[in-house]
């Protein structure tokens, strides 16, 4: 009886089910934690006022409540009190015993600033330059009016910044041109060099002029400022253009909160980071990650597929092929940092340095390609993922029934025709699976990037509107590295914590997005090319 029970395999089915459940559970918990912590970060939290036993007050966002580790039954609360310029700490613990009263008061303000993090408090005065009038009654209305008034000036300033950048770029181009000509033996008195020098001088004077205008524009902006004070009345002046956003969380309705949330999400997706990456957007990192994976695919996919096809379809089976196959499989298991070191040594210091010597000798010792960049990083990732693609391709071709191959060959097709017209379409779903695995692996890899070109803050994107549009030598930002950087390298770890969750969530979403596109493609191919059983 019991023997047949074991033989029937019921317990085995249960055990497999249990194992699968555990795996699913882990995944759900992981995604759940990231989503829970990541999605709530931008929801405006109420500003709580604590009246303390010593008569002072504290204002801030409630973070968490926990039991004292030493004193049982006593609790303490953590507030994000902001105002780093006043308190030098963003977060503070308050023991229950020391808090007399907790309340949420209307009218409390939160300012997101370019520097020093958030400010929580009240407005006392609003100032605009002479000659401009402030309409409106309450200080909040005055503040908003002043912001509207300064807007055109901010625009002017931004435009000026752009032109300064342009001039700098031009000057750099002229400098490099001159450097090249001199390097190739042109004398200092040559007409072309003189012309270049004149151009440089002109650019320089233009730059000086721009800087003067810029300083003036800044002065105008300084006229717009407000006087704010914290909950205990300590006051400070803040210039309006330092304020990224001001809001009154305690007065917001649901609609306003949703509006605020979407605004923050937009900032996250399309803006640059601020405050050493703990605030602002992640656009450069998103862009960097996607570009990196894309470039990696361009290298790894064709190479992997071609190598796989050769191994399976053309190479004569022998000890050599077997050796290669073993090598490929082992390659997939090498730690990624090893690839990183190889990339640094071979691509950056080897290939890159040679390119510099051959094509940009005049710029040395400043490296052009001889330093980390998105090209080298994606080549390194390409090497890392090629084995996955090779193995998947081989498996996909191996799974095609021999009959189909024979049918095509018996029709008088050449091997190439058979390959292109019949085998490739049939193997494509399997190859796509390899692509998906490779992409997922590449998007999540950080270690090899850290030594081949990823940076904390990149001055320019690897793709932009400037010819030649793809800037392969540029350094780049990456979501995975961003997590490591703000989570573990930031001076203000506590303040960066929400951003770690948000970045993680975003990375997961980006990977998910890229792989789901591939999965949809694969399923479409599968429907089309799979042999139905009859």
């Amino acid at each position, binding site marked *: 009886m019991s023997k047949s029970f074991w033989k029937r395999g019921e317990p085995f089915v249960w055990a497999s089910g249990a194992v699968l459940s555990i795996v699913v559970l882990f995944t759900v918990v992981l995604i759940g934690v990231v989503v829970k912590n990541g999605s709530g970060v931008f929801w405006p939290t109420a500003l709580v006022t604590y009246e303390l036993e010593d008569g002072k007050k504290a204002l801030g966002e409630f973070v968490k409540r926990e039991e004292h580790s030493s004193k049982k039954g006593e609790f303490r609360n953590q507030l994000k009190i902001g105002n780093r310029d006043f308190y030098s700490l963003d977060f503070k613990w308050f023991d229950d015993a020391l808090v007399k009263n907790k309340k949420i008061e209307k009218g409390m303000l939160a300012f997101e600033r370019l520097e020093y993090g958030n400010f929580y408090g009240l407005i006392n005065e609003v100032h605009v330059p002479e000659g401009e009038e402030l309409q409106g009654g309450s200080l909040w209305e005055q503040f908003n009016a002043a912001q509207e008034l300064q807007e055109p000036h901010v625009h002017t300033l931004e435009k000026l910044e752009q032109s300064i950048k342009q001039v700098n770029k031009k000057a750099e181009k002229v400098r490099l041109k001159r450097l090249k000509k001199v390097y190739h033996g042109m004398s200092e008195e040559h007409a072309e060099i003189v012309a270049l020098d004149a151009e440089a001088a002109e650019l320089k004077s233009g730059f000086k002029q721009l800087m003067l205008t810029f300083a003036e524009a800044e002065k105008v902006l300084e006229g717009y400022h407000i006087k704010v004070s914290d909950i205990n009345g300590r006051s400070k002046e803040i210039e309006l253009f330092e304020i990224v956003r001001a809001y009154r969380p305690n007065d917001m309705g649901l609609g306003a909160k949703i509006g605020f949330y979407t605004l923050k999400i937009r900032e996250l997706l399309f803006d640059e980071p601020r405050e050493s990456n703990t605030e602002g957007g992640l656009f450069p990192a998103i862009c960097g990650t996607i570009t990196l994976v894309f470039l990696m695919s361009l290298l790894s996919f064709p190479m992997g597929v071609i190598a796989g096809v050769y191994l399976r379809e053309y190479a004569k089976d022998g000890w050599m092929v077997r050796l290669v196959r073993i090598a490929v499989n082992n390659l997939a298991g090498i730690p990624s940092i090893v690839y990183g070191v190889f990339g640094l040594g071979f691509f950056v210091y080897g290939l890159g340095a040679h390119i510099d010597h051959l094509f940009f000798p005049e710029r040395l010792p400043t490296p052009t390609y001889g330093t980390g960049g998105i090209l080298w990083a994606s080549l390194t990732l390409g090497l890392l993922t090629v084995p996955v693609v090779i193995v998947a391709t081989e498996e996909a071709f191996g799974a095609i029934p021999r009959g*189909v191959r024979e049918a095509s060959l018996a029709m008088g097709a050449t091997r190439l025709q058979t390959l292109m017209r019949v085998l490739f379409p049939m193997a494509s779903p399997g190859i796509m699976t390899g692509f998906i695995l490779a992409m997922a692996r590449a998007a999540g890899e950080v270690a090899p990037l850290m030594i081949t070109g990823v940076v904390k803050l990149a001055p320019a994107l690897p793709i932009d509107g400037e010819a030649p549009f793809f800037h392969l030598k540029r350094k780049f930002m990456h979501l995975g590295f961003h997590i490591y950087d703000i989570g573990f390298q930031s001076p203000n770890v506590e303040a960066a914590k929400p951003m770690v969750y948000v970045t993680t969530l975003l990375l997961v979403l980006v990977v998910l997005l890229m792989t789901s596109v591939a999965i949809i493609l694969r399923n479409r191919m599968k429907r089309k*090319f*799979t*042999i139905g059983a009859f």
Partner: protein
Amino acid sequence: MRESFMTIGDPVVDCKNVNIYYGTAQAIFDVSIGFARNKVTALIGPSGCGKSTLLRAINRMNDLIGTVNTKGEIVVDGENINHDSVDVIELRRRVGMVFQKSNPFPKSIFENVVYGLRIAGINNKSTLEEICEKSLRGAGLWEEVKDRLNESALGISGGQMQRLCIARAVAVDPEVILMDEPCSALDPRATIKVEDLITELRENFSIIIVTHNMQQAARVSDHTAFLYEGKLIEYGVTDTLFTNPKEKATEDYITGRFG
């Protein structure tokens, strides 16, 4: 020549002293046989007797197995196909093949039929459509699939698939069609349809069919060759061979005493 071997004048395929080896193991021993034009010739014999090997030697499909070595002459249209100078691609266009397990490509029915034309570089739409219809009619499949030519060939029944494979072979207008147990994976009704088709195809093509099914050989073929342990034992007109075998082994086999 022993009296149990029939000679064919002007054979379409003429095998002369063919020996085939798998590595060191010999599979075919000194077989000489001529196949008649516009006739159906059945190759029968117990499993492992080498009939498929012999069949696949005629369009050099054995080349695909690296270890196979063919000695002797196989003459198709006056040309020894075992010569190095022979273009295998060209040969396989003249000698079509239908396999035991139907193997349509994962393409539309239309593309399956015109595959041989496409790889030969014919892409004229009206030509392809014309030949497609002609071949499907020839394979008795036209009425069944004419409304879904652009649907996947993997969605039709097993019997239809096999007839589609025949249509595909017919489309390139070969001289000889080799069939390797074409009905062994089909149910009786589909088998009858394919057998009828083979009988019709005889008018335009020379057919060599390997079969395990004695009744089938008797039903469809004009000539029958009996192979045993890699040797050609007896070859003659089907009716004579089945009713009055000259060799003891043939008699034993067709009466079901072994095999």
